[in-house]
C-alpha cells in the first residue's frame, strides 16, 4: 500500500501499465487513443454527457436516465432506442453484465454466445469488453442522447479504455463505490489504484479537449445507507478523480425515503465536495448531482412500484438534482422488459415536469438536516484525512480498516460492518449503532434520541429488529418497519 497516494499519475509512466491492461483481452488491441480523440471531436455537442449535465444544471432542470443492458449488440441498441423514443430518456446507459464486472471475460463470452443461440439474454448486462471498440461505437453513432457506462467493476481499466475509445462520454464508478458493495476480496488500495488509472485516462482525454463525465456510485449497497456514509465516499472519489484531471463530476445519492433528508442530502452533496476540492486547491471541476430512486427492495406489484418511483421523482425534482436514475415497475420481478423500463421513465418524467417549476421550500427542518449531514460527513472526512496524513487515497484505505467509514450490508471483507442503520420515527435513516464512525458526542446523542423517539412510539426497545423490519418495509408498502 506504500505506493498509494492521491497524486496525479504520470502519463508517460502509465503507458507500460496501459499496454498490459490492453493485452488482458483481445479487444484491447482495438484501442487507439489518438484515433479515439479524433472520433470524439467529430461528435455533436448534444452527445456529450458532461455538456448535457452542465446545461441541465444551468437551467435548473432534472434529466432522466434508465438502467439497461442486454448481451447482444443489436438487441441492446434496439433497447436503448426504445428507451430514448418511447421512454423519452434524456440520457442513456449501458449497463454491464456481472462477469465483465469481475473481469471474467471468458464467462461473459460464453454467456454472449449462448444468448445469441437461445435468442434471449442470459447475461444481466452488455459485455462491452467482449464486444470491443468498433461494436460499442455503433451505439454511440446510432443513438442521439449521450451514453454512460454503468457497472460495478473494482478494476474497470480495460472497460474504460474500450468504451471511452468507442465514444462513450460518461463512466460511472470509483475505487470505493465500485469495490465495497461489489466485491468480497479486492483490497481497497488495489481498486483505488485501478480507478486512478481510469480517472487519469479521463484526465488525458480532458487534456485533449474531450470532457468525459465521471460519477462515483452514490447508493453503495442501496439499503439504509445514511447520507453521511455515501457523501463521504462521494467526496473522496470526487477529490481523487479531480486530482487525476477529471473536469466533470456527478455526485450521487440513493433516495432514502424521508423527503427532508433526501432534499438535504442532494443539497449538501456539491457543497461538501466543493469544500474539500477547494482545500486541495481545485476549483475548475463542474459538479452536478444525481438522485437514484430507492435502491433497496421494491414492492412486487407494479402499481405500488409506480408509487415508489414517483416519490423518488418528486424528491429529485424538489431538490433540483441534475439527473435522476429511474427504477422500473418490474424492479422486484427481474430485469425489466423494455416496456416496463419505459414506463418507469414516463411516470418519472410526468412527476418531474409537474414539479420542475417548484422546489422544496427553505425551512428550519431542512436547514437542520443539512447541518447534521454536513457535520457528520465532515467528522468522517476529517478523520479520514488525518488517518491518511492528509491524503484521501491512503486515508480511505485506513478509514475503512478502522471502520471510520463503514457501509452497511457491504459484502467486502475490507468493510468493518459494525454499524446498524435504522429509520427514525419519520423514516430518516439514522444509526442505532455507529461502530467506529468518528461521531462527536453531539451527533451520537442526536442518533440515540432519534431512535429512542421511534422506540417510544412503537413501544419496543431499539434493536436489530428495527433493521430487519426496515429492510423489508418498502417492499411491504411502508417506509418505517413498524411492528405488526
Amino acid at each position, binding site marked *: 500500500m506504500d505506493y498509494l497516494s492521491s497524486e496525479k499519475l504520470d502519463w508517460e509512466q502509465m503507458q507500460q501499465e496501459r499496454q498490459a491492461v490492453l493485452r488482458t483481452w483481445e479487444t484491447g488491441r482495438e484501442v487507439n487513443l489518438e484515433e479515439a480523440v479524433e472520433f470524439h471531436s467529430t461528435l455533436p455537442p448534444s452527445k456529450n454527457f458532461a455538456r448535457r449535465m452542465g446545461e441541465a444544471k444551468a437551467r435548473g432542470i432534472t434529466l432522466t436516465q434508465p438502467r439497461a443492458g442486454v448481451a447482444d449488440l443489436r438487441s441492446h441498441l434496439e433497447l436503448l432506442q426504445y428507451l430514448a423514443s418511447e421512454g423519452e430518456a434524456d440520457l442513456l446507459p449501458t449497463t454491464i453484465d*456481472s*462477469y465483465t464486472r469481475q473481469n471474467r471475460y471468458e464467462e461473459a463470452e460464453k454467456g454472449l454466445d449462448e444468448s445469441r443461440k437461445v435468442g434471449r439474454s442470459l447475461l*444481466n448486462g452488455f459485455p462491452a469488453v467482449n464486444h470491443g471498440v468498433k461494436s460499442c461505437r455503433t451505439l454511440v453513432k446510432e443513438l442521439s442522447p449521450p451514453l454512460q457506462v454503468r457497472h460495478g467493476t473494482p478494476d474497470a481499466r480495460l472497460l474504460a479504455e474500450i468504451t471511452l475509445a468507442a465514444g462513450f462520454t460518461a463512466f460511472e464508478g470509483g475505487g470505493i463505490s465500485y469495490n465495497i458493495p461489489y466485491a468480497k476480496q479486492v483490497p481497497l488500495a488495489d481498486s483505488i489504484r485501478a480507478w486512478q488509472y481510469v480517472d487519469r485516462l479521463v484526465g488525458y482525454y480532458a487534456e485533449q479537449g474531450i470532457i468525459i463525465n465521471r460519477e462515483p456510485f452514490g447508493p453503495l449497497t442501496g439499503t439504509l445507507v445514511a447520507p453521511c456514509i455515501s457523501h463521504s465516499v462521494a467526496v473522496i472519489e470526487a477529490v481523487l478523480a479531480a486530482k487525476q484531471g477529471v473536469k466533470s463530476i456527478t455526485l450521487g445519492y440513493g433516495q432514502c425515503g424521508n423527503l427532508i433528508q433526501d432534499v438535504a442530502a442532494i443539497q449538501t452533496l456539491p457543497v461538501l465536495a466543493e469544500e474539500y476540492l477547494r482545500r486541495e486547491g481545485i476549483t475548475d471541476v463542474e459538479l452536478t448531482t444525481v438522485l437514484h430512486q430507492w435502491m433497496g427492495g421494491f414492492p412486487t406489484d407494479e402499481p405500488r412500484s409506480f408509487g415508489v418511483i414517483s416519490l423518488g421523482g418528486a424528491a429529485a425534482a424538489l431538490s433540483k438534482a441534475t439527473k435522476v436514475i429511474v427504477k422500473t415497475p418490474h424492479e*422486484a420481478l427481474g430485469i425489466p422488459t423494455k416496456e416496463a423500463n419505459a414506463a418507469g421513465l414516463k411516470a418519472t418524467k410526468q412527476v418531474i415536469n409537474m414539479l420542475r417549476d417548484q422546489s422544496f421550500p427553505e425551512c428550519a427542518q431542512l436547514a437542520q438536516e443539512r447541518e447534521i449531514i454536513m457535520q457528520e460527513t465532515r467528522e468522517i472526512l476529517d478523520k479520514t484525512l488525518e488517518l491518511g496524513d492528509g491524503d484521501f487515497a491512503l486515508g480511505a484505505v485506513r478509514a475503512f480498516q478502522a471502520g471510520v467509514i463503514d457501509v452497511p450490508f457491504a459484502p467486502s471483507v475490507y468493510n468493518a460492518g459494525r454499524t446498524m442503520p435504522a429509520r427514525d420515527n419519520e423514516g430518516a435513516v439514522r444509526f442505532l449503532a455507529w461502530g467506529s464512525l468518528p461521531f462527536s458526542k453531539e451527533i451520537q446523542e442526536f442518533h440515540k434520541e432519534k431512535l429512542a423517539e421511534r422506540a417510544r412510539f412503537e413501544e419496543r426497545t431499539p434493536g436489530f429488529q428495527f433493521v430487519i423490519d426496515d429492510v*423489508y418495509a418498502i417492499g411491504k408498502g411502508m417506509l418505517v418497519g413498524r411492528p405488526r
Partner: protein
Amino acid sequence: MNGKTLVLGVIGSDVHAVGNKILEIALKEAGFRVVNLGVLVSQKEFVEAAIETAADAVLVSSLYGHAEIDCRGLREAFIEAGIGDIRLYIGGYLVVGNQPWEETKAKFEAMGFDRVYPPNTLPEDFIPELKQDLGIEE
C-alpha cells in the same frame, strides 16, 4: 440449537449481500448452525464447506440472473466429492427477467435442486419446510 448444519452462500459473480445477511440471522434464530460463505462463492467452495462442516443441507442464493450458468454441474460436483445425496436448495432471482415460474422451477429441479424458491421468499415462508425436510420437530 436444533443440531443441523446449513451452508449458505451466494453463487457465482453475484454480490447481493443483503438477503444473505438476513437469511443468516433468520436461520440462526430458527436454531440452525449456519456456515455463511457470503457472496461470490464458487461451486468448489460450496462443496468443500459442505464436507468440512458435515452440512445437512446447502442453501444457494442467486439474485443477479446468472444462476442458469453458475449452477450447471453443481449437483455433479457434490456427487464427485462423495456427498451426492446432500440436500440442495436454491432461491432468489434465478433467471434473467421475469419468466414463467413453473418453467424456471422445473429447470432447476432438473439440475438437481431439491427445492427451488421464487423471488421474495421470506424466511417464515420456507423455514418450516426446511425443518420438515430435515426431520426437525418443533
